[in-house]
């Protein structure tokens, strides 16, 4: 049973988002890190890069697989988690804390509210599990 903190918002691509002041912090969910396996490399954007909702902002290389990380919102990258980039295992160990990936200054702050709630994400995971069996 994966961990889905109540206070965060989520995407169908298994990213989470947290509002911090006027920024939105983004990472991948506990479900995602579990599915990927051991994360060995993070490819993250540069500060000041533009990101677009639904488009890749970086890549995660896990045990023998490379997957895109999608931006939940459009905006500009304000900060990049260099600690996690140097120690990608943090994404597995602490996906919602030390494993955060980027902080974005959104072009539309209200876009955060359109993301899935914890309850909606939990339902989404259940429906995905149902479809693959």
């Amino acid at each position, binding site marked *: 049973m994966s961990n889905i903190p109540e206070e965060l918002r989520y995407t169908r691509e298994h990213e989470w988002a947290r509002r911090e002041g006027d920024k939105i912090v983004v990472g991948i969910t506990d479900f995602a890190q579990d599915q990927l*396996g051991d994360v*060995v490399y993070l490819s993250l954007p540069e500060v000041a890069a533009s990101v677009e909702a639904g488009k890749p902002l970086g890549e995660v290389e896990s045990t*023998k697989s490379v997957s895109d990380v999608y931006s939940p919102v459009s905006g500009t990258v304000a900060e990049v988690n260099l600690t996690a980039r140097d120690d990608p295992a943090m994404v597995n160990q602490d996906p919602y804390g030390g494993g955060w990936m980027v902080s974005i200054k959104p072009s539309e702050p209200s876009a955060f509210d359109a993301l899935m709630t914890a309850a909606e994400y939990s339902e989404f995971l259940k429906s995905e599990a149902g479809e693959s069996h």
Partner: protein
Amino acid sequence: MKPANPTEWELSTTRSLSGSENMALDSAGLEDNDAGYRVRIYSWSPPALSVGIHARIDQGVIDRCRTRGVEVIRRSTGGGAVLHDGDVTYSVSGPDPGLSTLDLYALISRPLIAGLRMLGVTATVERHPFTAIPLACFAQQSGADIGVRGRKIVGSAQVRRNGRFLQHGSLPVSDSRPLTRELLGHSDEDKSTYLARLVPGIAWDGAAEALIAGFSAEWGSPKLSTFALG
């Protein structure tokens, strides 16, 4: 629950293409949103060192490859460096079936293991997690590689992007470990094995036919096609 096999798939075999041509074809499978499952069995000419998308290689490796006439190219998949010198390489691409990394490996491992079994080789999926990208890919076992009694025989790598996936891998026919060590510039012990050690006298054609037969046995008859570059 066993991941379900594809019901329709296309097969092609390409021989003696260069590293950049081979990687272009594999990338095309990853990017063609209209394509179903595609399996390609292929060989390389000249020999090539394919390097994982995030792996670092130093100038010394590049210089030694140039001296030896070995092409160096980047893969779009992860992992380390693999020497392609007479190996049978496979690639599978298609719409992302929404499986976990390991389940997608399991889906593709079954036809590979079935193909090896037809040559009298009993192979299994090996799962030993590691936490860094080793440069000498075959010197380590990781994720869901295929091995024979603990020795890696098929090394694979995967990428998933925009609702599609690509997985490709290498089955060495002859022993490429000495040349790999020379090109990468290290002498780490490599516990991998190669097909001719297990099936004396096996050549590329026999190995390729066995892998194709393995895919057909597990996934049914393919539609035959030739993929075009460009």
